[in-house]
């Protein structure tokens, strides 16, 4: 195995963008039915990292590009004592880019986005929980759903799949306009408030099915509707509401890679026209057909790689690249969307593991211009909807969950880390 590797296509930008208000760190968690034992968890982590060596990589600066280097310093599990998706405290060369926390019944994995995407982090978490349960003496079996430490590492797991599926070409340019921005008063001290709701996935699926939509489409429509209701009171900002949804490219382009391999689909509605949940749902269903088509996703891959292949860009020194990327992102790209909703879907756990896992969570980091984001994850019929925000204003989240409970009669169970609420 090479001691160093280039960053994958999607990962190139994350180190340039990482800062206190844009940690680019997301969290996937498993909430077990019993309190976590840290000693066993540490043993499980020691076994798991052998299966996922790329997760221990650290990022270094070169003259033109950053690169990743394997690090043999052991990872240590830590009791959770700070808010989720906390930015790196130190430099990327000095600090592990994957961290494992425990608190009560929760095991959390926080990953710097340059290392892997949500799908890769979830694979890591599944193995970690499997090894943990196995060390506790539970009768769990991998059932071909867990990458166990006894398996060999497939070379494809380390590849940059963007390059594998790249076909030279010039896809049409996309001209995006700026989106409606959620604004508010930042928490002081700055931090991430996480408000989570657990609902029955099957009951929610039934509701979505009645409206002829998938579960993701329905929840996305509801999010856009609640944002619309807020934006209609904000007469100054009439820009369209746009929500970005990361798409796991592995579903369309078969790949075993554990590195980043995703594209972003942008859904849009007008904030000037009269909207209803039904109307928004129709618009989303129509946009889904286009956004999730293989042709559009292939074009996204080509567009990304073409940017990397620009000859002049390859010889621009890294500090200048950083300035360009930062300015482009914070002044333009980050303002092209109102917020992000990421859905890791139904996590496929082995049947022998499900009795020990209550639910799973995904927390997506808020950014400088998108102070509110949403993550979805389902296991054992428990769907956890996790909102993370860095502003005091809470109306969108409140209205979202109240809509589910009052309009559809769903039992919604709410919990929160109360950052910025209780001192």
């Amino acid at each position, binding site marked *: 195995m090479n001691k160093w590797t280039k960053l994958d296509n999607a990962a190139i930008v994350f180190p340039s963008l990482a800062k206190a208000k844009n940690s680019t760190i997301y969290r996937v968690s498993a909430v077990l039915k019993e309190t976590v034992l840290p000693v066993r968890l540490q043993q499980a982590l020691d076994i798991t990292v052998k299966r996922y060596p790329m997760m221990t990589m650290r990022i270094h600066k*070169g003259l033109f590009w950053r690169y990743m280097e394997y690090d043999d310093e052991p990872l240590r599990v830590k009791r959770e004592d700070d808010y989720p998706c906390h930015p790196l405290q130190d430099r990327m060369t000095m600090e592990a880019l994957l961290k494992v926390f425990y608190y009560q019944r929760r095991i959390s994995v926080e990953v710097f986005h340059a290392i892997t995407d949500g799908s890769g982090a979830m694979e890591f978490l599944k193995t970690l929980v499997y090894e943990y349960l196995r060390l506790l003496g539970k009768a769990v079996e991998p059932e071909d759903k867990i990458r166990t430490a006894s398996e060999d590492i497939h070379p494809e797991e380390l590849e940059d799949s963007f390059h594998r599926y790249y076909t030279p070409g010039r896809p049409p340019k996309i001209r995006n306009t700026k989106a409606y921005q959620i604004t508010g008063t930042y928490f002081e001290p700055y931090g991430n408030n996480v408000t989570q709701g657990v609902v029955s996935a099957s009951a929610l699926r039934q509701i979505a099915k009645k409206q002829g939509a998938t579960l993701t489409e329905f929840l996305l429509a509801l999010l856009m509707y609640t944002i619309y209701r807020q934006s209609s009171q904000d007469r100054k900002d009439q820009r369209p509401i746009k929500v970005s949804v990361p798409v796991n490219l592995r579903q369309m382009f078969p790949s075993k890679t554990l590195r980043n391999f995703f594209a972003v689909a942008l859904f849009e509605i007008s904030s000037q026209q009269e909207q209803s949940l039904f109307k928004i749902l129709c618009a989303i269903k129509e946009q889904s057909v286009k956004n999730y088509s293989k042709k559009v996703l292939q074009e996204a891959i080509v567009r990304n790689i073409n940017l990397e292949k620009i000859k002049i860009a390859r010889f621009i020194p890294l500090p200048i690249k950083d300035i360009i990327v930062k300015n482009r992102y914070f002044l333009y790209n980050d303002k092209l969307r109102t917020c992000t909703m990421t859905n890791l879907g139904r996590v496929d756990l082995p049947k022998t593991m499900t009795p020990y896992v209550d639910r799973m969570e995904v927390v997506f980091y808020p950014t400088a211009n998108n102070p509110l984001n949403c993550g979805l994850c389902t296991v054992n019929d428990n769907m956890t909807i996790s909102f993370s925000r860095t502003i005091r204003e809470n109306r969108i*989240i409140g209205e979202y969950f109240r809509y589910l409970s009052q309009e559809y009669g769903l039992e919604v169970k709410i919990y929160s880390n109360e950052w910025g609420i*209780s001192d």
Partner: protein
Amino acid sequence: MNGGFQINHCIHCQVTVEASLQECPLCGKKLTNTRLSVPRSYPAYALHNKSSYYFQLFWKTLVPLMFIGAFLIPSLITLLTGEGDLWLNRETLGIASAWVLVRYTFLSRMHMGKKFLLQIMNISLALFIFDHVGEARGWSVNYVIPFMLICSTLAMMYIVYKRKRLWSDYAVYVMTLIFLGFLPSFLYLIRVTSLLWPSAAAAGFAIVSLIAVYFFLDKNFRSYFNRRLHF
């Protein structure tokens, strides 16, 4: 379904809420039947997380502003009007240099190599200005700076030699220090320095260091450049 934790109810939102919460996270209304003894889903965050914000604000924003107000502005007025005593410039320089030392050494989380390099530059510049604002005897460039470069290069190479895994982290700073070793000779060529032998010693040490790096760390060295210079 209770998700494994004990619950309370918010009548306003019509949702169930974790039993230990005192307010509904959605509407902020006070909840009755709160049970504080029930474990929470998240830890109570330590006070230091919040107080460190004010600590940082004080040291990184307010203290520099106070220095600017107290020293730089009077100095600037003295310089612009030509009235008053220029003694203040020296004090200002000393305080500014000390502030860089404290701010970027003790209060900064930047890389140790970068701290090292920054402080060498900071001290060299401060000594050079002190020297030239005074009687300009050239002691800073003739003696102090060349020997400081030799000692600091030696110190950093020793650290890297002792802890080999730090090599890739420190390489860029070691190389920068080695090349800075040629600076006194350059200053001699442009007649800023009047004494040759300390400058020549610094340059000689830089050459020896380069050879040492190439021969003793050759494999790592070449691999390091492959990584650093890939495009």
